[in-house]
């Protein structure tokens, strides 16, 4: 089980990094998820994919952290810290980072659906199970999320911003 969990860590980190842009905060989430998985191992249904179960745990931890951050009137976790100095270089890299920044501006419920479907390439049904919502809701959140992201992306790509270069 431990070995199997370790093998899933890269995917957990990728999912977490999309939910929380700050690397440390995302890894904190993954770490808590691993600990939770090992303590709740008895609850794991071997019929289910381990990754899907771990995603469920991670996502629930994420939601409860958002909630407690809000209760404590903290700065929302999503905003993250200023990014540690990655040398701005390739256009592709710039686009990628811009994308992550835009993603953070979506509501968490759209963000998680987008990440599971578009990045983790899970089916609507698997995504629905992880999030505990009907597949129809997955589809509507996905549509809204993609639409919003497109709009933000178009604003960001708009010529007035380009001229600064």
């Amino acid at each position, binding site marked *: 089980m431990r070995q199997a969990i*370790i093998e899933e860590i*890269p995917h957990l980190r990728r999912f977490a990094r*999309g939910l929380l842009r700050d690397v440390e905060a995302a890894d904190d989430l993954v770490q808590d998820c691993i600990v939770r998985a090992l*303590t709740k191992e008895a609850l794991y249904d071997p019929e289910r994919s381990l990754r899907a179960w771990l995603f469920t745990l991670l996502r629930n931890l994420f939601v409860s952290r958002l909630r407690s951050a809000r209760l404590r009137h903290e700065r929302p976790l999503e905003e993250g810290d200023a990014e540690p100095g990655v040398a701005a270089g390739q256009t592709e890299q710039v686009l990628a980072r811009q994308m992550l920044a835009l993603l953070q501006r979506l509501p968490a419920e759209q963000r998680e659906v987008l990440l599971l479907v578009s*990045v983790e390439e899970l089916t609507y049904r698997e995504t629905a199970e992880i999030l505990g919502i009907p597949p129809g809701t997955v589809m509507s959140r996905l549509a809204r999320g993609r639409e919003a992201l497109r709009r933000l992306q178009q604003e960001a790509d708009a010529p007035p911003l380009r001229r600064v270069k």
Partner: protein
Amino acid sequence: MTDRPALEDATLHAYLDGELAPAQAAEVAARLEQDAGARARLAGWQEDRRRLKAALDPVLAEPLAPRLAAAAWSAPRGRRRAAALLARVAAALLLVAAFGAGWLVRDAALSPAQVTAFGRAALDAHRVFAAELRHPVEVPASQAGHLNAWLSNRIGVPIAAPDLSSAGYRLLGGRLLSEPGRPVALYMYEDAAGRRLTLSLAHSRAGDGTGDLTFQARGRLQVVSWMAGPLDVALAGELDGDRLRGLAELVAAGLGRHA
């Protein structure tokens, strides 16, 4: 195409995500030929998906963070019997992983999650308060008696700021912080060069216990945390591990409990 309605967005998303049966997908593909608007929408989403993956896929190739490997190996299950073996496996893993990542973690293999979490909170507290030039503490060391009594009262365990002067650190004072669900006492020290050290103490949720030192780092900042009797203890500063370990021993002795 004349009598056909435009392709619906829901269908297009399902097409993009491979959710359609082959026959349906073929039909959508054929209809897309005639529907420039739908093609443009689809292309936009496709491009965003590509960028999103390009942004996040590199995470898969990152070296395994030592603290995550440690978390997977340290666990509540099969603690005693497998402990020694696991510690060695984890140590080996950490050594390998520490090269790639900016992390330096030692002795973390068998520490309970709570100790790790407390260390993390102490790191955050250090980052916030050690940077304060003018108001680093609420109560200065000149009122040490009052400070110790106040913090003891608030956290519910009798404590006194350990004397670290033999290591070159003098007490600046202290303050009270809050973690969800419990108060935390923070003592701050400073050496002759103005480098600061923070000591966080809280009433442990785990009850009485003692534990190994758990080291974690964020950039140049290091923290060591452990359990000492009824206390969760964490010591943070911009120090190397050996120096921090020495100070932790001093703190443990000063608290009158074993580390």
